[in-house]
């Protein structure tokens, strides 16, 4: 369908809202970025001087390099494992309605709903008991608890959308379940997997409590450092907190841009069909 140049009022409204959102976003990000480079920003539009010192300070104070590395590893592991475990489960829940499927669905909802306060400490105890906490594996395992259900919940509608005939065709070509997943479903679910990975990563990186409870001295993630710098006792220059927040966002942004660079959030099929128009 042709897009006319003269947009309808509805389109104006939508694009207007988008532009307001962009302006707000630019303001929010801009003010933090400016502040993170600023020296003595009192009652004025812009700081009196600029420096990159706050970054160096944040970098050193929190030994950010290892922290970033750990964060990255944790994110990738958590996202990867939750997709590997969550998607097959979501598949079954989307495709079959067996006795008890609703109850199971509810079971998978609980870890998302229940605040970590209710299970964090006992979970950490369990993990410590089996020697799984205190290092990376603890952080990963603990973060998987809400992440796997999260993937299940997001992926279910995506899987429902896929025509089961395609899977059947694959089976008739001799594809085992494994192949059906890797060769047929995975490519078709790419936008969904991307979306849920991004969300899982964001949640993982933001999951302060579970991470802190199960992390060891060298498996702290960025969010622990950041949360600390934001809410711990003691005096810190706001600029250095902002610098950390900017570093954090930059890392996430890099991941996001990379992800969006390689994966299009539009389903390939729709893309082919849209191509004609």
């Amino acid at each position: 369908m042709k897009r006319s140049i003269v947009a309808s009022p509805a389109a104006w409204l939508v694009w207007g809202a988008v532009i307001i959102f962009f302006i707000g976003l630019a303001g929010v990000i801009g003010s933090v970025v400016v502040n993170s480079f600023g020296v003595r920003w009192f009652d004025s539009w812009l700081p009196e001087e600029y420096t990159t010192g706050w970054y160096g300070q944040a970098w050193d104070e929190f030994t950010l390099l290892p922290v970033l590395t750990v964060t990255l590893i944790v994110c990738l592991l958590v996202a990867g494992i939750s997709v590997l475990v969550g998607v097959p489960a979501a598949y079954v829940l989307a495709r079959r309605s067996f006795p008890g499927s609703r109850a199971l669905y509810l079971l998978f909802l609980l870890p998302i709903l229940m605040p970590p306060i209710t299970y964090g400490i006992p979970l950490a105890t369990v993990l410590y008991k089996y020697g799984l906490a205190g290092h990376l594996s603890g952080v990963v395992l603990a973060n998987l608890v809400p992440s796997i259900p999260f993937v299940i919940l997001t992926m279910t509608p995506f899987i429902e959308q896929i025509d089961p005939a395609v899977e059947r065709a694959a089976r008739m070509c001799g594809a085992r379940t494994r192949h059906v997943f890797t060769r047929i479903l995975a490519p078709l679910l790419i936008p969904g997997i991307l979306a849920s990975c991004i969300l899982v990563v964001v949640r993982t990186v933001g999951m302060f409590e579970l991470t802190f409870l199960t992390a060891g001295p060298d498996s702290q993630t960025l969010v622990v450092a950041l949360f600390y710098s934001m809410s711990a006792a003691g005096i810190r220059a706001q600029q250095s907190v902002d610098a950390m927040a900017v570093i954090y966002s930059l890392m996430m942004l890099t991941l996001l841009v990379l992800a969006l660079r390689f994966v299009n959030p539009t389903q390939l099929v729709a893309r082919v069909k849209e191509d004609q128009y």
Partner: protein
Amino acid sequence: MTAATVAVRHRLADRGVDRQMLLLVPATVFVVALFIYPFAYGIAVSLQPAEGGVLAAYQAFFADAYQRDTIVTTLMIALPAAVLNVAASVPIAYRMRGRFRGKRVVTTILVVPITLGTVLTAEGLLNFLGPAGWLNRFLMTTGLTDAPVRLTNNYWGVFLSLVITGFPFAFLLVLSYLSGIDPSLERAAATLGAGWRQRFFRITLPLLAPGLATTFCLTFVLAFSVFPSAILVGDPTGSTRVISIAAYEAAYVRYDYAGASAAAIIMGAVELAVIAVVLGLRGLLYTGSTAGGKG
């Protein structure tokens, strides 16, 4: 004909039970092992308050208006934010579904806030919308207002931070769900005389609805468990005293783990109630392949 014996397998398969259910095993084992036990422990803790009977922690929560009201406060923040996030992402995603120049960039920018994290968002809101922030500076230099507009350290601060972090989330999901709908269905509707409004409301929206329900649930959960921003940009003693603050204070300020668990479980229960309603409605919707026929 020989007796038509039917394998148990077929009966089970007919009821949705077959070997593929094995795919559920890893996730189930995981959740049972790492969640159910600790969570049961958490429930047990909530039932063992330092003083009083088994339900004393719950009674205490509901008896104290200051605590009880956090439920309503939280709902008043989370529901509108979730509704707005979902409702705003639908038209935007709908506009973005075709192909146009710069789509990737616009998509990326719309999703960017997801990377900001609560801290940057909070800092940004405080800096940008604060009494001496750029917005108020702009409004006052242009003479649009005399006194600074208060948008932080109150309900609006929290609400805005939930929109900033929640919208991209909803948008990303909705955009992807939307792209799973066969575009030829809308075309078919167009040949039947349906304008965009009707195409949207009669074809796209119903097919999108299951995805929207899920998106709503997730954004709602995120909004409901809002914690750092309720403190950082909100008014944590008053209008944005959300239930997670109540739980947090019980656990980490008063070290009353029973009370904290009770508050958290009440929080989960309220969420569950809302989500059960939404998912129940979702169950009534058409949820299936969105392809329209052959090919």
